[in-house]
């Protein structure tokens, strides 16, 4: 093990700060070269700070307004997430080197830094601050595409993520008022009797539920997921790569810290693994296919957190780690296609391996990794979660057999949309005669680095297993057993056979220029329609009320006119005797009242 020198003066500086400050400087610097230096230097500085703490502990404590803010909690869980966030920030910086966009440079860095800050947050207020900062900074990666669709999607994205932040704050306030503590997951990693990990927050209070909902929105739980498929495909080329790394994995981290072992997550996660598969099969926009695929991958991590054993949590963390890299690689390859071919619509692509062989090769590595082929990173990570579920299913939780079957189904689904569809329709399939230039050198270097990591981690899985939250448990796990390799190869090869079979029989759907509605129809069309209808109804009601009041006033006015006008009833000539009688009667009543009142 390498011993890194400890710099005492920097002991309290969270790795998030150099990245955020780098982003703020980039926002002010017009010089393109300087901004690019910052994009690469800031993650390197963050990495230096990551290595700086000598021991597990909480650093960077700030007293502010009567609150104790913990900005740098360095423990077994934050270590792995922050490390891969730093790695992703560096790769993203490389990938975006050719872009001359100050807004993208600044927002990319601030967003990455905010993600790091949230991972290191030791209390819910610090978490809230960085949680909202990720939302606000990342929206510029969508708006950076500078078209109307991206602008609208960005607004929806921002609204949903601000809502997530508001729920988090509300939950934190309620929780603090009940428990007197703002701590975030203080019990995590303790009391691991029987391999179970105590949930840091849990669902035993309203505050706990609100925070859970906040995390669920960012994690793209079913029915809360559409911001992901809506916004990511409309982001800039680099923006989609950057976005794919942080937001959802931050939510997975937050769930792992706050809700490990919460049963409901098993079922939510299982649904997440399965339903995006069906949408991805017939989606024409390949970046949207990747967004559905992202949703499916998150499901595996959520199931792992729900199971909550040490092995399962190792699985969730390892999966998040490798997923960030291979998903970024796939988004990078599609970004390169978009840059060169001008589209990522499957119906307009094909045969690009002849023009972009290096990009095709890197995409295939990403596809093999996400499909969990042996020797690739997905294999050694996903195995932990599946083994944990299978182990629990055979040790007193038979209900998990169904969940395990869903996960295996979803594994075949992953192969369909990310393992086959993405590379096949972009680079092979029908040669559409597109002859474009290969991706720029910086993009290829970034993709090459990510591809190298996919293979490196797949082969040298021990490195990954030392980073997971429970390395001593991971050290006892062997992914490359004969049984596991054969089982996985059966699954993947038979699924590939199914693909060739369906294509040969003409039973595989053509790529069509169309869209498929998803749950966002509820708020984009139905909800929007309801609001418009309600608004129109209120408008009509107000008009009707106005008419009613006007009519009543007119009627009252005419009655008064009839009574008091010179032509009115009270102005008519009436006998004076009668008037005298009425006057006397009125006087008598007045006298009577004043007598009684006295």
């Amino acid at each position, binding site marked *: 093990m390498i011993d890194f020198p400890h710099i005492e003066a920097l002991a309290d500086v969270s790795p998030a700060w150099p990245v955020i400050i780098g982003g703020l400087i980039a926002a002010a610097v017009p010089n393109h070269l300087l901004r690019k230096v910052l994009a690469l230097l800031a993650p390197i500085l963050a990495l230096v700070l990551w290595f700086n703490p000598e021991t597990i502990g909480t650093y960077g404590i700030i007293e502010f307004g009567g609150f104790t803010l913990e900005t740098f909690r360095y423990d077994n869980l934050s270590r792995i997430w922050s490390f891969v966030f730093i790695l992703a920030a560096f790769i993203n910086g490389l990938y975006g080197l050719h872009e001359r966009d100050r807004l993208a440079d600044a927002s990319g860095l601030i967003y990455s830094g905010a993600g790091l800050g949230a991972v290191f947050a030791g209390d819910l207020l610090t978490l809230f601050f960085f949680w909202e900062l990720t939302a606000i900074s990342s929206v510029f990666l969508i708006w950076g595409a500078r078209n109307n669709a991206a602008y609208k999607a960005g607004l929806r994205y921002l609204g949903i993520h601000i809502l997530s932040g508001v729920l988090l704050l509300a939950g934190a306030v309620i929780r603090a008022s009940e428990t007197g503590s703002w701590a975030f997951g203080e019990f995590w990693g303790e009391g691991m009797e029987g391999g179970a990990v105590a949930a840091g927050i849990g669902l035993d209070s309203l505050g706990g539920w609100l925070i859970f909902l906040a995390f669920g929105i960012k994690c793209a739980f079913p029915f809360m997921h559409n911001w992901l498929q809506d916004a990511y495909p409309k982001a800039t080329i680099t923006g989609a790569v950057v976005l794919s790394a942080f937001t959802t994995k931050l939510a997975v981290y937050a769930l792992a810290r706050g809700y490990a072992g919460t049963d409901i997550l098993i079922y939510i996660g299982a649904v997440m693994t399965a339903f995006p598969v069906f949408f991805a*099969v017939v989606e024409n926009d390949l970046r949207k296919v990747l967004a559905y695929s992202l949703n499916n991958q998150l499901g595996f991590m959520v199931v792992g957190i729900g199971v909550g054993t040490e092995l399962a949590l190792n699985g969730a963390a390892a999966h998040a780690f490798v997923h960030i890299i291979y998903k970024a690689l796939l988004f990078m390859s599609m970004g390169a296609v978009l840059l060169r071919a001008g589209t990522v619509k499957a119906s307009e692509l094909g045969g690009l391996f002849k023009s*972009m062989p290096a990009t095709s090769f890197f995409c295939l590595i990403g596809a093999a990794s996400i499909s969990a082929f042996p020797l690739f990173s997905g294999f050694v990570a996903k195995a932990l979660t599946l083994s944990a579920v299978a182990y629990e*299913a055979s040790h007193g939780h038979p209900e998990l057999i169904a969940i395990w079957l869903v996960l295996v*189904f979803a594994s075949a689904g992953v192969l369909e949309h990310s393992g086959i569809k993405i590379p096949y329709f972009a680079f092979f399939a029908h040669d559409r005669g597109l002859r474009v230039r290969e991706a720029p050198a910086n993009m290829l270097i970034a993709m090459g680095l990510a591809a190298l990591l996919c293979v490196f981690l797949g082969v040298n899985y021990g490195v990954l297993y030392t980073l997971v939250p429970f390395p001593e448990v991971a050290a006892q796990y062997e992914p490359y057993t004969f049984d596991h390799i054969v089982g996985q*190869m*059966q699954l993947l090869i038979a*699924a590939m*056979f199914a693909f*060739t079979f369906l294509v040969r029989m003409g039973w595989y759907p053509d790529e069509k220029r169309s869209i*498929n509605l998803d749950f966002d129809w509820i708020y984009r069309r139905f909800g929007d329609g309801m609001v418009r209808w309600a608004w129109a109804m209120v408008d009509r009601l107000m008009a009707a009320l106005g008419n009613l009041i006007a009519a009543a006033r007119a009627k009252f006015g005419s009655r008064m006119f009839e009574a008091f006008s010179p032509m009115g009833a009270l102005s008519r000539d009436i006998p004076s005797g009668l008037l005298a009688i009425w006057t006397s009667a009125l006087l008598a009543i007045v006298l009577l009242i004043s007598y009684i009142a006295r």
Partner: protein
Amino acid sequence: MSDPANKKDELVHPLAKPFLWLDAKWLKTSMIWIFGVLTLVFIGADFVHHRHDYIPIAEIPGFYAYWGFGAFVLAVMIGWFVVRGLLERDEDYWDEGGDHD
């Protein structure tokens, strides 16, 4: 006059030229056989060496192959007939409401 097909081939990236066979018709038609045979080989491995698994059903020889094949077909069919069948709309569907997509 230059042949357009030749001109197109001239634009092929030098690194891709050794791999043009990937686009060959014989490969496309033989893929089904290649994967079919490979599937049988991996199923056969279960008969040579009994696979141990926590889940009893997974110990059936060739279980993962059957499940993988079935899952793939099911995913494609549900995607095709349920998602596309019920939820497919024109590309400009969202534009019509002024809500660009």
